[in-house]
């Protein structure tokens, strides 16, 4: 069934390239931040699918870590966009 996994990885890569297009093209900073957030969530899925494809169970731990860091980074970017400091 490795053909199925490779097709899924290609589709997810196309979606990541669409996010990259929005990051480069975005008219405002908010568009770029939305693109970065969605790309982080897509990378979680890509990492998990790669772990299934090569039967490496530690890649799912990396997926959990990427999800955590993407969440905290998005909150920090939103605070920056709101022109406030990080401690209120």
């Amino acid at each position, binding site marked *: *069934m490795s053909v*199925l996994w490779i097709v*899924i990885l290609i*589709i*997810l890569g*196309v*979606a*990541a390239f*669409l*996010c990259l*297009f*929005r990051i480069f093209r975005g008219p*405002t*900073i*908010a*568009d770029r*931040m*939305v*693109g970065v*957030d*969605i790309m982080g*969530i*897509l990378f*979680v*899925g890509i990492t*998990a*699918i790669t*772990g*299934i494809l090569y039967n490496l*169970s530690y890649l*799912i*731990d990396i*997926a*959990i870590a990427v*999800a*955590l860091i*993407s*969440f905290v980074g*998005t*909150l920090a*970017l*939103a*605070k*920056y*966009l*709101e*022109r406030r400091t990080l401690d209120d």
Partner: protein
Amino acid sequence: MTDVTVVDVIGYIVILVGVLFDLLGAIGLVRLPDVYNRLQSATKSVTLGTFGIMIGILIVTGFTPLGIKALICGVFLLLTAPVSAHALSRGSLRFGAKMWKGTVIDAYGKDKLGGPQIESEESEAKESKEKEDEVA
């Protein structure tokens, strides 16, 4: 190919549905006209898509450590993605990102910012026409 069971096929179908939701969310991120529309399309469908991938991995691998970790990762994504989307949309509203000119209602701007933030030429033209009518 001989050891593909029915449970595996169900898991593959769930993963494929999730991947299609991911692709549709990314297409919406490119095609929609506004920050808020892009955020709505992308966050909802991409969160559901990645959660579907994680549930599919759980179904395919069963209750092994890999499947349990995938379930934990999916539940974490399901909890945190709405929070980050809400923070991003509020930040972009306070930042002053302009809405699309076809936007119908802006309740947050009306309550907190003292007036709608929708900047459309048509509504301004309507308002000026109404003022002219009142004067006349």
